[in-house]
């Protein structure tokens, strides 16, 4: 596999080579003819280029020199045989030439020859340049043979035999601006040595599939990152260096995604994430094509290798965090694209829940031993929260997928819906176990909104999606889940009538007020919500509207039993009441007039009305009827007045709730939204 940094280095190497060759070979320049000796002496500049580029480069040099590299090699051997020996520099150059032939063709036979040739420099007292190539060539052979021990030993040997003795002189020369002087010898190669060791350890090792035993090289990687790789932009431009890559590896090695500092694990996980990125790109561009599915399988398999390597919960959490994201992406894509290909991801959410449990159990001590000693407590917390977020996202995405399939496949609807319900239930039991009031550090704020989504999803699975013949226990659980959903997110207007519907299914609609009132009171009396509104926090208008509305029992009843489309009907009923009140008042006024007129004209027992004919005599049956009607009417009027007053107060509040801006879509798409923090506080305030 070709990495971008290598390509860049290849390009940069051309310009650097030109400068070096010019500086180094004034004699040859005068002669006007470059030789293989010149290029091979500076092969450390371009030897890390990828095979294609290296092949092009070698072809170009051969054309320029007028001699192919294999002919050069052959000639040096013939010369040696003819002369009965050769200078060590010729031996070294031949070994380098054979290595370059291997690197450009990937033909192991060349590497074997190179190893045989360089063997004459096995003596530790050989020149630094010879020792560099000795270890470099042997390290390549170790990779070719899959021998991690040999590979590590040769990289460490290279550091000991070449880097350690040359660093101080290099700095001296650098202080004198002579580090790149033509006469400074192999000392000037040190920036390239750093670059090549970094590429060998980080890139080439992975390209060759070395996925065990690299941990001792973590020391070398740390040394390289400490003012070495990328620290000489005058020699190797930063953009041509692997510095960025190295820094990313160091960040992983020492951060929350580390497996207790294991370089092997870090590199394998890094390669897996690269494959994951590739599959994600294919998913976006091609959907779930055969190529995408193959790519997803490759990434899953790479994550599988990483989880096999992980020895600490820290490392396991890092793998699960990433692989759950992949699972969520696959489920979301299946739902979005309406296809259901067979994509196996050899991980389960249960595994992730177990890892979270292990991390949680160590919260009061012992967390450092779970792989966080170097990365620290913040990394431990970050790891827990990150894993939780992926657990919740993977759960919600996979449950959504089952529900959407249930809609498309009525024959299997009940089965698929119950699958979704099981996923929701698993998350909810995880939530109820760990999302305690004192778990702020270990549980992300977004967990509460996710709990609302899962609880609502559970209830809807049995109430709204219409599972065939849900059992009483399932309906009872649906009622309880709706209550939990309301506690976690009371600002969903449609959730309140959902609770009523669930209660109706059990013939308990009358229990609505008893169940909903405590939740409503928590919201209306919440200090956190009041403070949020006072500070004009995000969503304040909606939160204030709900807070005011839920403080009114009649509004709560409307929320439970009315829907938005019935609002106009409710408002019409208020007008009807007002009309009835008017009619009643008129009637009562007339009755009162008849009674009063009789009193004025005839104080006797049976007086006539004010008109004479209809005057009612006091003490008659008629007068008693009027008195009774007046009394009954008065009570009715009083009742009507109360009803009108209550509805006149509650209906505008209910209308405001109905018309308030929805918060859920924003919260669903933004897991870092500030309202998540308020939801957590509200939940534990109740």
């Amino acid at each position, binding site marked *: 596999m070709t990495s971008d940094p290598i390509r860049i280095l290849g390009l940069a190497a051309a310009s650097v080579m030109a400068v070096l060759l010019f500086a180094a070979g004034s004699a040859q320049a005068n002669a006007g003819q470059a030789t293989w000796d010149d290029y091979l002496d500076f092969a450390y500049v371009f030897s890390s280029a990828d095979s294609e580029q290296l092949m092009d480069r070698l072809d170009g040099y051969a054309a320029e020199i007028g001699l192919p590299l294999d002919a050069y090699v052959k000639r040096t051997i013939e010369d040696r045989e003819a002369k009965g020996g050769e200078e060590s520099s010729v031996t070294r150059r031949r070994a380098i030439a054979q290595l370059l032939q291997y690197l450009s063709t990937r033909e192991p036979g060349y590497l074997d020859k190179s190893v045989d040739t360089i063997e004459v420099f096995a003596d530790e007292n050989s020149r630094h340049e010879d020792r560099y190539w000795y270890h470099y060539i042997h390290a390549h052979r170790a990779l070719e043979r899959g021998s991690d021990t040999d590979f590590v030993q040769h990289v460490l040997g290279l550091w*000991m035999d070449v880097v350690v003795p040359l660093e*101080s*002189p290099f700095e001296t020369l650098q202080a004198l601006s002579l580090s790149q002087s033509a006469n400074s*010898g192999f000392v000037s190669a040190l920036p390239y040595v750093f670059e090549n060791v970094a590429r060998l350890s980080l890139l080439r090792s992975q390209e060759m599939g070395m996925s065990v035993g690299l941990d001792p090289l973590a*020391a070398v990687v*740390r040394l390289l990152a400490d003012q070495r790789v990328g620290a000489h932009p005058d020699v190797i431009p930063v953009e041509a260096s692997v510095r960025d890559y190295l820094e990313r590896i160091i960040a992983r090695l020492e951060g929350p995604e580390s497996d207790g*500092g294991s370089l092997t694990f870090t590199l394998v996980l890094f390669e897996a994430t690269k494959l994951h990125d590739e599959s994600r790109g294919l998913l976006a561009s091609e959907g779930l094509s055969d190529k995408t599915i193959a790519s997803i399988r490759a990434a899953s398999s790479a994550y599988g290798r990483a989880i096999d390597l992980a020895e600490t919960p820290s490392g396991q959490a890092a793998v699960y965090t990433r692989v759950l994201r992949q699972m969520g992406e696959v489920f979301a894509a299946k739902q979005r694209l309406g296809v259901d290909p067979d994509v196996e991801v050899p991980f389960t959410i249960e595994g992730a829940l177990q890892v979270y449990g292990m991390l949680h159990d160590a919260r009061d001590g012992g967390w450092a031993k779970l792989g966080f000693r*170097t990365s620290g407590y913040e990394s431990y917390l970050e790891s827990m929260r990150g894993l939780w977020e992926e657990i919740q996202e993977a759960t919600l995405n996979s449950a959504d997928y089952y529900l959407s399939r249930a809609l498309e496949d009525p024959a299997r609807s009940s089965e698929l819906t119950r699958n979704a319900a099981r996923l929701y239930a698993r998350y909810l039991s995880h939530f109820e176990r760990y999302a305690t009031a004192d778990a702020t550090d270990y549980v992300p704020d977004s967990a509460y909104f996710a709990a609302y989504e899962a609880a609502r999803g559970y209830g809807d699975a049995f109430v709204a999606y219409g599972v065939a013949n849900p059992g009483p226990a399932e309906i009872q659980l649906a009622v309880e889940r709706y209550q939990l959903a309301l506690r976690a997110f009371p600002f969903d207007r449609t959730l309140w009538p959902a609770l009523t519907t669930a209660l109706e299914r059990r013939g308990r609609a009358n229990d609505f007020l008893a169940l909903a009132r405590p939740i409503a009171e928590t919201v209306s009396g919440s200090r956190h919500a009041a403070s949020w509104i006072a500070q004009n926090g995000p969503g304040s208008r909606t939160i204030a509207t709900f807070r005011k509305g839920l403080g009114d029992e009649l509004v709560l009843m409307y929320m439970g039993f009315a829907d938005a489309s019935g609002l106009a009907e409710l408002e019409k009923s208020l007008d009807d009441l007002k009309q009835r009140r008017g009619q009643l008042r008129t009637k009562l006024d007339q009755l009162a007039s008849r009674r009063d007129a009789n009193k004025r004209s005839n104080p006797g027992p049976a007086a006539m009305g004010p008109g004479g004919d209809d005057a009612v005599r006091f003490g008659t049956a008629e007068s008693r009827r009027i008195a009774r009607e007046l009394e009954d009417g008065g009570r009715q009027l009083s009742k009507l007045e109360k009803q009108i007053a209550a509805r006149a107060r509650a209906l505008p509040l209910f209308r405001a709730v109905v018309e308030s801006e929805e918060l859920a879509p924003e919260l669903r798409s933004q897991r870092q939204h500030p309202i998540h923090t308020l939801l957590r506080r509200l939940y534990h305030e109740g």
Partner: protein
Amino acid sequence: MTTNRTLALRALAFAAIVPFLACAGSGNPDFESMESANTVEEAPLGGEALAQRRMDLDRAWRDLMHFEATMESMVDRRDGRSVALLDGFLDEYMGTHLAALLRPQWQSSHPEVMALDANLRFLQAELFAQMRYTRRVQESIDDIENRFLGRENMLVEYPRGEQRPLGEALQMLRDRKWSS
């Protein structure tokens, strides 16, 4: 601003490496002998040479921190095979490079480098402790005691990331010798 004195010192330093540069075309300069010649020098250095020594000590200290972090993580993971590989490397690194760098007496009392010198010795001893070389830890303790006699109040960095008086750090190191 470059002073005349600095220029003169640079000229001296350059003169010192000219013979090596002259032979660079045919091979590497003998940097090992140059290095060991410096380390056996007992007189306090100044100027560029002192700056170079400070740089060497600082680099060695940072490098040891990286070795220690790596060794610590491998010990934590009980990765005996990796520990053995790095152990072999460190044994050679400390036995040749670091031993030569820490040999001169003067740098343990020179005000510009003595803190670095002490920190490096403590870090090396800590690594010995991790590698369970108790005899070498004891030798390091004895060496520090001798070199810094009467300066137990000098602040040193031990363990990594924490500062404390040298006497207290020595006591911690003694405890560490058997508890690693």
